[in-house]
């Protein structure tokens, strides 16, 4: 833990999370053993550094500097679908690209030079500095470099201690949340506040999803003070402590950030989702409940009724076409049940849903939604997924980009609902888009063509001969 406990981060308890039921229900021995270790040769998924980048890089006016060898930044920069309505600095790649010289003599000077150069060239609102396995192992004092560079540049320089080997992507999300709590949130006061200011945590504006949600919230007078971190600006995140409520969107890993905001600033929070009509209704009522306002609750119910009526008309033709379609859903966390209800709202039968990254609580919800015939997927390797699809006679796999080609190579329709997705599925507008994309995937003319045998695999039947004659005539 040397790399993690260095510096001020030690004040944020990383493994003590009362809001996490993983932690709550474990006996002492299990808790001591910690999170399950990845299996060599049989592991998919990102590292803690990856998770930290996912959580923080969407802050658009920040220069994100990776302190490590080229592998970490070179293979990942500008690779995420988080959109910005303004600055594009977050999409640029900054890496110290350390060499043997730094491995032997230390990379602090090079990091300092890189941060100062990035600040000089781009005038960012802040610079975030990410440690990596190699720079954690060689013992660079990143906190000291950040402090020195902040003095010279007069720009906040934020150290993020999430070297890849520290753990999984989820743990990296949590480490990023700890960095925000420790160094960013509470350092800026908003220009003005309203009684309806809220924070969103774990919403990354993939494919512009946030922009289908904020207008709905605005109708109720709810202002997103800080989005952590889709389409965010540094100053907004830094002012998150003035919000009146926090919603944790689809991310158990960032519960610790929500709880931290509650402990330090007394901001109440709830977990919710923007996917599907039921989830949207719960979310709007959830905000109304926390903001403690009868009028708001009444208006929320009015809005829900109006939006659902509007969407129902747009969904009607899709509901007809999608009725009876069978889907296997393989995604993680809150989406593993919130999407189930969204799909069921469309008349799609969800025959199996993945739960490899879900909590016991999530699994209970999946089981309740799927009913007795539903299958909860525990092991999501491609062979297993294809077997489940085959046995359940599913028509489509709905999953993350990692499984896209698994499905396609099995000649199976596919819809991407994870971070590489190209389409926005959140909110009421997103629900219609989800229906449209499902319909397009299922009804595409390509499936029949690629499933047909090649000429050399077809018997020379009279029927074929007839077709040829027809074609020639």
């Amino acid at each position, binding site marked *: 833990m040397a790399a993690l406990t260095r510096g001020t981060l030690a004040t944020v308890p990383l493994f003590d999370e009362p809001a996490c039921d993983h932690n709550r229900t474990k006996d002492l021995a299990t808790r001591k053993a910690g999170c399950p*270790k990845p299996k*060599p040769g049989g592991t998919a998924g990102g590292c803690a550094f990856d998770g930290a980048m996912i959580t923080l890089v969407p802050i658009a006016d920040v220069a994100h500097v990776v302190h490590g060898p*080229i592998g970490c930044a*070179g293979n990942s920069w500008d690779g995420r679908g988080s959109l910005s309505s303004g600055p594009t600095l977050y*999409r640029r790649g900054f890496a110290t690209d350390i060499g043997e010289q730094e491995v032997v003599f230390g990379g602090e000077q090079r990091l300092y030079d890189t941060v100062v*150069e990035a600040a000089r060239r781009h005038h960012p609102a802040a610079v975030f500095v990410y440690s990596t396995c190699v720079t954690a*192992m060689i013992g660079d004092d990143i906190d000291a470099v950040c402090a020195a560079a902040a003095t010279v540049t007069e720009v906040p320089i934020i150290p993020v201690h999430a070297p890849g*080997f520290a753990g999984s992507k989820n743990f990296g999300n949590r480490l990023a949340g700890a960095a925000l709590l420790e160094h960013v949130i509470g350092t800026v006061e908003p220009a003005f506040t309203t009684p309806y200011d809220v924070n969103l945590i774990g919403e990354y504006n993939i494919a512009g999803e946030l922009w289908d949600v904020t207008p709905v919230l605005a109708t109720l007078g709810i202002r997103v003070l800080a989005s952590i971190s889709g389409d965010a600006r540094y100053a907004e995140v830094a002012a998150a402590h003035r919000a009146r409520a926090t919603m944790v969107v689809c991310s158990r890993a960032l519960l610790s950030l929500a709880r931290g905001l509650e402990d330090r600033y007394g901001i109440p929070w709830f977990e919710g989702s923007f996917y599907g009509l039921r989830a949207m209704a719960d979310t709007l009522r959830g905000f109304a409940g926390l903001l403690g306002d009868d009028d708001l609750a009444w208006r929320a119910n009015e809005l829900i009724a109006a939006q659902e009526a509007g969407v129902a008309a747009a969904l009607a033709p899709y509901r007809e076409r999608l009725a009876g379609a069978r889907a296997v859903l393989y995604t993680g966390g809150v989406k593993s049940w919130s999407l189930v209800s969204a799909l069921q709202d469309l008349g799609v039968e969800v025959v199996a849903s993945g739960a490899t990254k879900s909590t016991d609580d999530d699994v209970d919800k999946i089981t309740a939604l799927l009913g007795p015939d539903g299958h909860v997927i525990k092991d999501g390797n491609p062979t297993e997924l294809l077997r489940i699809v085959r046995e359940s006679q599913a028509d489509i796999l709905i999953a993350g980009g990692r499984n896209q080609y698994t499905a396609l*190579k099995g000649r199976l329709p596919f819809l991407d609902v994870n971070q590489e997705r190209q389409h926005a599925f959140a909110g009421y507008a997103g629900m219609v888009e989800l229906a449209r994309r499902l319909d397009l995937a299922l009804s595409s003319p390509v499936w029949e063509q690629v499933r047909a045998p090649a000429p050399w695999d077809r018997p020379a039947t009279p029927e074929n001969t007839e077709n040829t004659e027809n074609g020639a005539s």
Partner: protein
Amino acid sequence: MARVVPGATGAAFDPLKHSQPLGGALVFLGLARSIPLLHGAQGCTAFAKALLTRHFREPIPLQTTAVTEVSAVLGASDSVIAALDTISERNHPDVIGVLTTGMTEVNGEDLLGVLRTSPYGPAASAAPAAGHPLVIPVSTPDFRGGLSDGWSAALEALVGAVPAVGTAPTRHRQVAVLVGPSLSAVDLDEIAGLVRAFGLDPVLVPDLSGSLDGHLDEAWSPLTTGGTSRSDLLGLTASGAVTVIGATAASAGTALAARSGAGTALTIHDHLSGLEMVDRLVRMLMDHSGASAPEAVRRWRRRLADGLLDSHFVLGGARIALAGEPEQLVAVGSLLYDAGAEIVTAVSPTDAPVLGRAPWEEVVVGDFLDLAERAAAAGAELVVASSHGRDVADRIGAAHLALGFPVYDRLGAQLRATAGYRGSLQLLVDAANCLLDHRSGRRTGPGREHSAARSSTRFEDMRS
């Protein structure tokens, strides 16, 4: 003869460079029933896999030894053996390439020593039994070199695993073709076709045209679904000739010739773009086969010659900025230079001997920041680079030809032709058309009605 100069910053601003393990993994992805294994944290594999998937639009077999902070400190050799056990048991591959990363090189662990005393050591590898993988370790720390260096190292390690022979070549008509990373699937097809046209049998190493060309098989597979077979690989030293196509493969080619019998001919071609370079290969194939060039080869040469004439009106004097891996930079740059284009800047992520042989004046070892600054200063009209280069082209108001790695903003990276008579012609045409599209959009006379609207739009574009 170009001089090689360093870029503007010591660090990487919009990195052009990719890591050594990625280049090494690509070599193993060009072998049949193979899987590369990155020895590092799980993120090393996850990032590489995501990027390769975006580029090839294919499932990418790639595994990790999943080193944690505890095993990084206490020794990660158990993780390697555990990973090899798991992969062998689950997938039964023919070949596993074990590539180190920065973190497993920093802790100073002796990977070769670990493997030597394991069931996956060189004794088992020299004559692998059925069902037992050929395990090839390669040292590829992220903090040294880049993609091309990883490719070279992995290819050298592959050649090192081929049993050396002392006798004269037993397969005179077999030509071992060691290739570099700049060749697409259609390029590799073109090269194999050229060799076959002379009645010779090519063995391409690696052969990404068989594995990652984008083809629909019967079913999904956890291993590569094509590429150089293990038996072809182990029979390389019986070849009558060794030919290197791509400067990145030169060191492996030299090593293979040395391991082969006396009388094995070795020829090295830095690349296969442009009339003169293809002529050299054809001459070699004529000499080795004793056959004359068949009509199909002659026909494509005539077409390339004609294409040079047609395209020189467009490419002549065109200001072109390039960024890419060393071998590709020299291949594409030479082709365009020989059609009369002006290479206003050329940026390579790493240094390599081939850069010095570029026919234009200067090559910068730098990143996309260098490309952007120099291309803007020189008023480049066309940027030839990977998908990351599109932002640069947009910012300076130039056209963009997507070429290199990674290409994720359009389809068909493996269908981009650059090599042979036919591929050279295709690339000339693609580059010229790119420029023609770009120029036609800008040709607005002062008296034209729509000129005001057009120029104001473009001004906005340049500001953003």
